[in-house]
């Protein structure tokens, strides 16, 4: 890469040329990034891109084959014991014991995190309250919903007030309500100065939480930027217009291009990206009104990682 960005403060997390293979499968292939202290980094990538491997290495659960990683200046491979004192980790699957109660789970993790018996109990109650689990604190976790387990799992990662927190796909499989509640918790943590590295498959989630986003593909950094920069590049919504004939679609495409959009036509369908939210649909339809027969179908969705990667890999080139 050309020219290093100037770093104001020491990074809380730094990965430098990390590589890791599992047999023949290359999971990480020279991954480098840094997370400034007190910021939230979103590690965005599809399944199999190396997100979990990265987080596992940084949280000392896994050892890299090559490269170096530090957390608060501590080398994760050379000094894992000290790294463990400053990190919290919540993996991809809620790693809580179904046969313990919520409170028992937290006090156990607290004891094993060496915060002392009395403090572990106090902290457990504080976190149960903070994550809306007070009412269920005395129930066995096997009776919890998926969302509750997940919140408990994240709470467990916070027990010893770690200054650096790793969250691996914290909202995968959660209902929207639990998802937003968890987002709020992450924001609160960031406000209190915790450095957070979270992985996600959702652009929207990275947008909502991260100060900086690193997109990884095949174990390498594919792109990086602030959510605003990425949004400008990939749009925040994608909508599809279906027309009766390819000719109508082509006309609509020309009309929209003249209005400053960048539509992509495929057969009778038109795909339009916008970074001004789903409200742009109205503007687009208004531009078309009277000039083209009304579209027979309209659908709107957020850009998926597939869209992002298509854009990243076809940069400039038109998909036929």
């Amino acid at each position: 890469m050309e020219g290093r960005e100037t770093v104001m403060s020491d990074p809380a997390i730094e990965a430098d040329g990390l590589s890791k293979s599992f047999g023949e499968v290359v999971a990480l292939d020279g991954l480098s990034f840094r997370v400034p202290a007190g910021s939230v980094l979103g590690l965005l990538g599809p399944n199999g891109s190396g997100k979990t491997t990265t987080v596992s290495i940084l949280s000392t659960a896994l050892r890299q084959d090559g490269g170096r990683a530090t957390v608060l200046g501590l080398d994760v491979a050379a000094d894992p014991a000290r790294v463990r004192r400053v990190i919290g980790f919540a993996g991809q699957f809620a790693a809580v014991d179904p046969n313990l109660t919520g409170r028992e789970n937290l006090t156990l993790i607290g004891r094993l995190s060496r915060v002392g018996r009395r403090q572990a109990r106090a902290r457990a109650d504080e976190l149960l309250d903070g994550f809306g689990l007070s009412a269920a604190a005395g129930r066995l976790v096997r009776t919890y919903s998926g969302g509750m387990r997940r919140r408990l799992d994240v709470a467990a990662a916070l027990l010893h007030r770690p200054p650096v927190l790793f969250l691996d796909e914290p909202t995968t499989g959660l209902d929207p309500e639990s998802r937003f509640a968890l987002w709020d918790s992450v924001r609160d943590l960031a406000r209190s100065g915790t450095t957070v590295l979270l992985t996600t498959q959702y652009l929207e989630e990275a947008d909502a939480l991260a100060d900086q986003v690193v997109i990884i593909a095949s174990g390498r950094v594919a792109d990086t930027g602030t959510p605003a920069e990425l949004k400008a590049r990939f749009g925040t919504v994608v909508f599809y217009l279906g027309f009766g004939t390819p000719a109508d679609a082509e006309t609509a495409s020309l009309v929209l291009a003249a209005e400053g959009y960048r539509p992509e036509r495929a057969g009778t369908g038109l795909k339009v990206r916008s970074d001004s939210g789903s409200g742009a649909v109205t503007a687009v339809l208004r531009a078309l009104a009277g000039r083209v027969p009304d579209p027979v179908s309209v659908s709107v969705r957020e850009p998926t990682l597939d869209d992002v990667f298509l854009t990243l890999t076809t940069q400039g080139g038109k998909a036929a």
Partner: protein
Amino acid sequence: MSTITLAPAQSLVARQPVTGRVAAAFSDTIDVAGRNLRTLLRTPQALIFATIQPIIFVLLFRYAFGGAIRVPGVDYVDYLMPGVFAQTVAFGAIGTAVGLSADLRSGILVRFRTLPMARIAVLGGRTLADLARNLLVVAVMVGVGFAAGFRSANGAAGLLAALALGVAFGYAVSWGFAALGLRVSDPEAAQAAAVPVVFLLVFTSAAFVPSTAMPGWLQAFGTHQPVNALVTAERALILGGPAAHDVLISLAWSGGMLVVFALLAARGYARMGR
């Protein structure tokens, strides 16, 4: 002298002084064992199934086959029960493999790896809890044995010594199954891998019938393996007579297995992160 105070845990966990490491490792082990025992008590099915199998064996061999088995100089039930005690601890040890592979699958082991806890506590706590479970099941089996007419000719001391020997054996084997459980992230697969091994050792030993009735090649194997050494020693302790030699052989097996298996398990745990 703990450096952990009641002040708000501002950020970092206090650094453990070297002198406190052993105490901390012990405390972590107890915490993990406590968690495993709680889990055990809250899934009583597992405990019940662990008890049912040896009970069925007592009933089968005491009442169904027992009439046809003749062991000179001793009531068959008194011959049988030491074998059942050995069978109980040997099969009981399989629980270690099942429990650890369940923890591996659930992701709890990964979480444990990222905590500032003593690493030995994961395995130490698991095997300790399984030792407690084995004690419980063995106690039940003693009750069942008494109900079926079993008496220890050598008195309570002989019986307790025999049971202690058995539980020590179970503890050593637990470490072997811990090594297995760490390599199989599927509890059913771990169980399927462990059962045939235990089955083979228990049924080629003299646990239920004297080895003298076996063909020579089988006898050669059956009498030179750890379950048979345990059965022989337990029987000597319970029935009376010179026991020191047999006890030493069984202890040597258990001690040797403990060292080898603990090293294998510790290495398996360390390799999880490779």
